[in-house]
């Protein structure tokens, strides 16, 4: 069933607990799993499910998101017809609404009206998963549902399938009905819609706080979860950076870790995620940590339970030991010297 679904991604979400990592970027652009941004997962799922028109509704700090997605070329969404669309929110007031604000959609109603796709798939931007939406659509049609809510272990994962016309109706009548988003509709027993649940049983992790972020990163070092998220026939696409392969020197020792390209590793790394082009100096030990792109860690350092945002520089001899329940987060571009620590 080609080209029967629209993709709609709500990229407005923001969570205070992730503040340190979201100063310069929206949640959708949060780096994860070594070389990805959060939005890559749902966006790739859509592309892999034959969705050829995707609308992204961003709000705060979406410069890095725009930079990441560009024309959509890396997701094969730079098309003559359809492709990738951006619909920023007109205001900057924080909204209290759930995923897929009808108010936000209303400002861009023309997109929905002009689209020829019969169905719309509405998703959040902060769920790590690998889902094929085609079987969801098939089941939706077979059973004759009005709304399908995707679930994991019985809980909603904030992804909904609905007829585009129904969505347009819901947006236009939002004042009369009082519904602000899909969740409101699904939760209202008297909505008159036939609501179905679709259980997805692969790896699913929602990233809405720093603990979940850290936890998800640690879980991915389990090869069985890893294989549920990264499948040969359903690849996750991302922005290409042309980094060379990672180089391990003869002093390097790496155990149970996820390493992206372009890293230069001279020290010891354990239970950690290294994003692209990270440098790890001699005699340095890094464990249970997440090191984002282009961060540089000097010689003789000890890092444990630490999250380094991108472009962080750790000078020689620095010791940073966090708590697994409360990892130390170093903001983007910071320089950490040995003296600052004492």
């Amino acid at each position, binding site marked *: 069933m080609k080209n029967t679904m629209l993709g709609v991604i709500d990229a407005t979400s923001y969570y205070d607990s992730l503040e340190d990592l979201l100063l310069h970027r929206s949640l959708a652009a949060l780096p994860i799993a070594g070389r990805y941004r959060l939005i890559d997962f749902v966006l790739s799922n859509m592309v892999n499910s034959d969705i050829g028109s995707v609308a992204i509704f961003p709000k705060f700090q979406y410069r890095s998101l725009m930079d990441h997605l560009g024309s959509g070329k890396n997701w094969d969404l730079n098309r003559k017809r359809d492709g990738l669309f951006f619909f920023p929110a007109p205001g900057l007031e924080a909204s209290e609404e759930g995923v897929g604000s009808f108010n936000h959609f209303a400002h861009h109603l023309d997109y929905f009206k002009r689209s020829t796709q019969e169905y719309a798939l509405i998703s959040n931007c902060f769920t790590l998963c690998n889902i094929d939406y085609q079987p969801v659509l098939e089941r939706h049609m077979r059973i004759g549902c009005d709304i399908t809510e995707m679930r994991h272990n019985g809980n909603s994962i904030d992804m909904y399938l609905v007829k585009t016309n129904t969505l347009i109706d819901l947006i236009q009548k939002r004042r009369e009905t009082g519904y602000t988003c899909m969740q409101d509709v699904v939760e209202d027993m008297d909505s008159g819609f036939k609501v179905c649940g679709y259980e997805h049983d692969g790896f699913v992790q929602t990233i809405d706080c720093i603990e979940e972020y850290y936890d998800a990163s640690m879980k991915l070092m389990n090869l069985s979860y890893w294989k549920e998220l*990264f499948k040969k026939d359903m690849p996750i696409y991302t922005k290409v950076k*042309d980094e*060379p*392969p*990672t180089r391990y020197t*003869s002093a390097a*020792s790496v155990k149970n*870790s996820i390493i*992206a390209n372009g890293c230069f590793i001279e020290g010891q790394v354990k239970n950690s995620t290294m994003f692209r082009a990270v440098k790890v100096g001699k005699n340095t030990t890094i464990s249970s940590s997440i090191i984002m792109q282009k961060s540089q860690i000097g010689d003789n350092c000890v890092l444990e339970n630490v999250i380094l945002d991108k472009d962080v520089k750790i000078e020689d001899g620095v010791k940073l030991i966090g708590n697994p329940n409360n990892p130390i987060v170093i903001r983007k571009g910071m320089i950490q010297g040995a003296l600052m620590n004492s």
Partner: protein
Amino acid sequence: MGKGRCVAMLLAGGKGSRLSSLTKSLAKPAVPFGGKYRIIDFTLSNCTNSGIDTVGVLTQYQPLVLNSYIGIGSAWDLDRKNGGVTVLPPYAESSEMRWYTGTASAIYQNMNYLEQYDPEYVLILSGDHIYKMDYSKMLDYHIEKKADVSISVIEVGWDEASRFGLMNTNEEMRITEFEEKPAFPKSNLASMGIYIFNYSVLKDYLEMDERNPDSSHDFGKDVIPLLLDEKKKLMAYPFKGYWKDVGTVKSLWEANMDLIDEENELNLFDHDWRVYSVNPNEPPQYISEEASVEGSLVNEGCTIEGTIRKSVLFQGTTVKKGAHVSRSVIMPDAVIGENAYIEQAIVPSNVKVPSGLCIMPEEGSDEIILVTESFIETLLEQEKV
């Protein structure tokens, strides 16, 4: 560099027969190199990084992989409105069908491609070498020296000089004589197969060469000697840096090993001179609890549970538990089975090495083992006996 002033012609039709089964179904420029690249990536990236945005790629031998790899050139930023990359296969004319018989005739048959850009200069390249070079500097040199032709040369050791085409020059670096693989070299300046021609000179001399029935239509053997006879101004452009012809299994292996040498001259990590390649869209590499990786180059998409020493691993490689890989090159999507042992070898793409198999050279031998499927079969049969 101004638009259309210099057009590059990249000769990528070579069979590379000394690469054995590695080039059975693909042309030499498409052979994987350095953990994520194909040989041609270096030349194409050189073009992009030198500001040359019009590149004709001449293909002939087994072009399928190469053609689909190059595509419209997006990976090298060569998908341009004007110029960009154009794949130029041999074609039939109303009178006859002509294969490319030599490097010179290949360019001659694509004169109409060059004619539509009417460039001032033509840069002729081969897609067989690993090096990083700023062609715009060579062009500056060519213009400054008011040369008709400039040929890039590199100093090689006197002991190996007789393996190359050598340029004898005067003190101003003007080429006085060209000798193809002489037994007694008078110079150690080897031609790198990189030429810049004034377009008018190229046109005239390719036509002359084409009319000569005794010519083998090769730049080195025929066109350069002809230019020298006619007293044209041929300048040698001295290049310093890493340059390697990866024409044999051994030299391909060596060039890969050069990359993991801590002192290696070919810096892949230089952000100002990126080597571009087509992205395979693989997740990061996963290194397990049991794994050990030292002194190696490992690409994304690898799953490593074994021991890796001084090796280059391409994307999608799997090394299972207990397996040991040392001083080897493992090409894309190959699988090394549990407890297998591999030393001093190249494992081609998609080859599955069965569990427990031991592949290593005879003691003291410097032979590089090419672990093809038929090699594995033979080895398994021997074990049965």
